[in-house]
């Protein structure tokens, strides 16, 4: 259990005000926070975070959005698993991705256009950075990891995070490996008593410098496309140098940070309960990484877009049902598909609750986070990129309102992305490309 769960802020402040000597169990509490609980002891404000949470195959039309715009009263039946959390997020319906004459790449165009502002052409290269990358340029430069990527169904390719120039990130599939990456030997505990820089770590800097020195000679003879890829390489190298620098400094203490118990991998795969269990573990590790300021940006994908989720013993996967299940004559919708959609929402509920229950300062991690929830299709049976469900979760440190249903009326879905980025102070007043370009934010959602 982490320290902040055991100790309320009130106790922390009481101890501080009394000026009592701190006990062994509370070694740093007097220097954790400022008096109002909104900033770190060193005066830096508690950081704002951004994440994406992705699931495949959208929702059934008419079964998710609330009936009315404005403050949400009742959600559609497929959102039942997150009904109790409805004051913590907004729902955006009625937006769309404009193809602008480009071919639809099924299970790809919708999510990539929402996240990068551009309809992808071709199989891999996508020249525009995704929202998380643009946000990390603003809020993620000082942390150890620019961002963390994970997925829950065992396929490392489930990741829709792109750096400028088309570099696509990959996802961690194993919670145990994600744990080792964050809290392994390179982790410097901000609340640790001892700090001694490791000379071997310092030594590595010298050889990275040697590689950097050769940059000009290496790029001299190569073409433009390859040069952009080498630039990405050197950006990554500088990020590692930055990590090394952080390992050589004593970090400021962080009240909410604690090292979670090591995890062992559950059964990783596409069976729905296994995938949800992995989602819970991944999200928990991400929350700890945020609290320990190892990163401020994350991308978690429950599945890929062509979702392979399945119920044990059932021969058809979610994607198969989305195309083959008959519309039930009584209820008027695809019953099995609806069950899968609700399972995905159970995963989302876990993700929201993990951040909402994680105490930090005078609030929770969720208060200072913005999580962009997206999927690839509106009505999956049709591969539709119209009315794709979008949500933003959290208040982004007070920049966003929550609890609202916002109806788009055919607007480009990039409006939501632009709104999220403005809430996180990304200096953009217009975003998206060609038919998906917009300079209109969703003003109702912004404070």
């Amino acid at each position, binding site marked *: 259990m982490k320290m902040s769960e055991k100790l309320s802020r009130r106790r922390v402040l009481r101890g501080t005000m009394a000026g009592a000597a701190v006990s062994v169990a509370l070694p740093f509490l007097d220097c954790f926070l400022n008096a109002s609980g909104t900033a770190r002891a060193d005066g830096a404000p508690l950081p704002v975070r951004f994440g994406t949470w992705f699931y495949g195959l959208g929702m059934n039309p008419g079964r998710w959005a609330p009936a009315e715009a404005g403050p949400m009263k009742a959600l559609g039946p497929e959102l039942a698993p997150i009904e109790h959390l409805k004051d913590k997020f907004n729902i955006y319906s009625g937006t769309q991705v404009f193809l602008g004459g480009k071919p639809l790449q099924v299970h790809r165009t919708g999510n990539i256009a929402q996240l990068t502002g551009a309809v992808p052409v071709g199989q891999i290269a996508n020249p525009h950075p995704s929202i998380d990358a643009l946000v990390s340029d603003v809020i993620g430069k000082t942390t150890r990891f620019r961002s963390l990527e994970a997925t829950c169904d065992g396929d490392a390719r489930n990741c829709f995070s792109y*750096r400028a120039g088309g570099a696509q990130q990959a996802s961690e599939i194993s919670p145990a490996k994600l744990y080792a990456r964050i809290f392994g030997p390179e982790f410097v505990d901000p609340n640790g008593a001892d700090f001694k820089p490791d000379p071997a770590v310092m030594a590595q800097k010298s050889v990275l410098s040697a590689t950097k020195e050769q940059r000009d000679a290496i790029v001299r003879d190569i073409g433009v496309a390859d040069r952009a890829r080498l630039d990405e390489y050197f950006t990554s190298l500088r990020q590692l140098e930055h990590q090394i620098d952080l390992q050589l400094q004593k970090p400021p203490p962080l009240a909410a940070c604690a090292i979670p118990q090591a995890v062992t991998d559950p059964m990783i795969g596409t069976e729905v309960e296994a995938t949800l269990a992995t989602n819970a573990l991944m999200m928990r590790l991400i929350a700890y990484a945020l609290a320990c300021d190892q990163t401020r940006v994350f991308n978690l994908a429950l599945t890929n877009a062509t979702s392979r989720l399945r119920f044990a013993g059932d021969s058809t996967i979610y994607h198969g049902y989305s195309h083959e299940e008959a519309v039930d004559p009584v209820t008027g919708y695809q019953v099995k598909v609806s069950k899968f959609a609700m399972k995905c929402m159970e995963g989302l509920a876990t993700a929201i609750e993990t951040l909402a229950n994680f105490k930090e300062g005078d609030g929770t991690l969720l208060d200072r986070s913005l999580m962009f929830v997206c999927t690839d299709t509106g009505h999956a049976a049709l591969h539709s990129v119209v009315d794709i469900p979008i949500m933003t979760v959290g208040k982004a440190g007070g920049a966003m309102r929550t609890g609202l249903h916002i109806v788009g009326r055919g607007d480009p879905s990039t409006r939501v992305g632009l709104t999220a980025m403005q809430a996180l102070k990304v200096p953009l007043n217009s975003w998206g490309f060609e038919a998906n370009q917009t300079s209109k934010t969703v003003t109702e959602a912004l404070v």
Partner: protein
Amino acid sequence: MGLWDMLNGNHGKRLLGAAFIGLAAVFLTPAIKAQTAVADTAQVVGGPVVMRRLTQHEYRNIIRDVFGPSIALTGRFEPDTRADELIAVGAGEATITASAFENYDRMAKGIAAQVLDDDHRDQYISCKPVDKRAADQKCARQFIESFGRFLFRRPLKENELAAYLKANADATALVHDFYAGLRVSLAGLLSAPQFLYRQEQTEPDNSGARRLTGYGMASRLSFLLWNSVPDNQLLNAAAKGELKDPQILTRQIDRMLASPRLEEGVRAFFEDMLAFDNFDSLDKDSELYPAFSRDVANDAREQTLRTIVDHLLSRNGDYRDLFTTGKTFLTPRLGTIYGVAVETPNGLVNEWTPYNIPAGRPQAGILTQASFLMLYSHPGRSSPTLRGKALREKILCQRVPDPPANVNFSLLEARGNEYRTARQRLDAHTSNPACAGCHKIMDPIGLALENFDTISGYRAAENGAPINASGRLDGINYTDAAGLGAAVHDNPQAPTCFVRRLYAYAVGRQATQGEGKWLDGELREQFSSDGYRVRGLLRRIALSPQFYRVTAEAR
């Protein structure tokens, strides 16, 4: 086993089935023997050089070949990127993001720690430092130079060497340990862009265009034929400029083709062509298919690779016969999946033994092997569509278009729950005009494989309804899976596709227009007149001036 043994081909690895000695004489038909490398001419086509990120496979092979098989790789690889059906082509677009670099760095440190630990380092360093607690530039130089040459596929340039030596001195001064300092240097080489990216150097040729340098040629050859870095002999030949001499180039290529390491190259190509990297995320429903396991999946992958290597290399067989051959290899546990008893000398479940499919079974060739059937299926059921699509795209190079947007599936949905067989379900697709166009080119060939479920177990019926496996591929009718194999065998597009794929794999990009004419025309003809021998085709590509010629034509 030391570096030099490793690099001179003494792997202790043996080809399946047949001993390798003397094979060179058997597989080189007179027609191929007559061909030797020719000098550049102005008519020779070419294409641009593509900077390729090392694939996982290449990385593993390089570490094994340079440092020996006892060095374990710790850490995780970034997934390879696939483009135009090949990882080899995707590698030309793959980037190294921050998290990827972190992984490469971790892997590099793990390798360096093992190479320079107390037990191993004397195998790799012939000199001794004057003082173990201080830098020794002479000894460090020897180490960095010799390993840098293999890892970068060329000697380090003076400025590179100077930078690494300075870094080594700085690092050693911090850690007060010669070997720890060297560890940092080796990790640095292993995370350098010159190692992680294959950058083939070019130079002007004598016709005013450009061609690969000797080291560029050596690297392109060794990755094609061995899926790894050039060995000492090849680097020496490059250093002396000998690869520009047609006779010497021919000798080197024949040496490489006769080496047991060719098996690595052929395996790597087919793993890429058949997308066996997808085995990493393969998942089957354990309630429906309790016989499936990770071990079975690994055996399935290995079965096909053994079949390919045995047929194409040990037997020097016709490429097209891969789709009809009944000769394969099984382990007892793989036999369980196929429903056949496999006896092995030691009776172990994971023991390989040659196996001939009995006549009369509807099974022949690699399309009816568990690897293909499992990979192109869903976790809980087979997929004629995925299987058909894979055959079209991977074996015949025919791209199946994406499904159209906003298709109305109501026809299909209306009776969706009534269908008992895949054929009934898919017939609904083909009765919908929006779907029919594409499903008609995928489903009929996939339906021929419907006698095999998602883990390739045989079945005569699905949900009580008999399976009809008949169909037609590009004008040839068949009644079962073996017939489909025969139809692929006789499809002229299959070898044309193979030539295109192999060349794209070799150069890391799609062929340029000029190259395409040569591939579909002259080279395709030669492949045919050589009896569709893959070793012969590799030799023709390796000897062709096209392979080394560089033009600025856009990718």
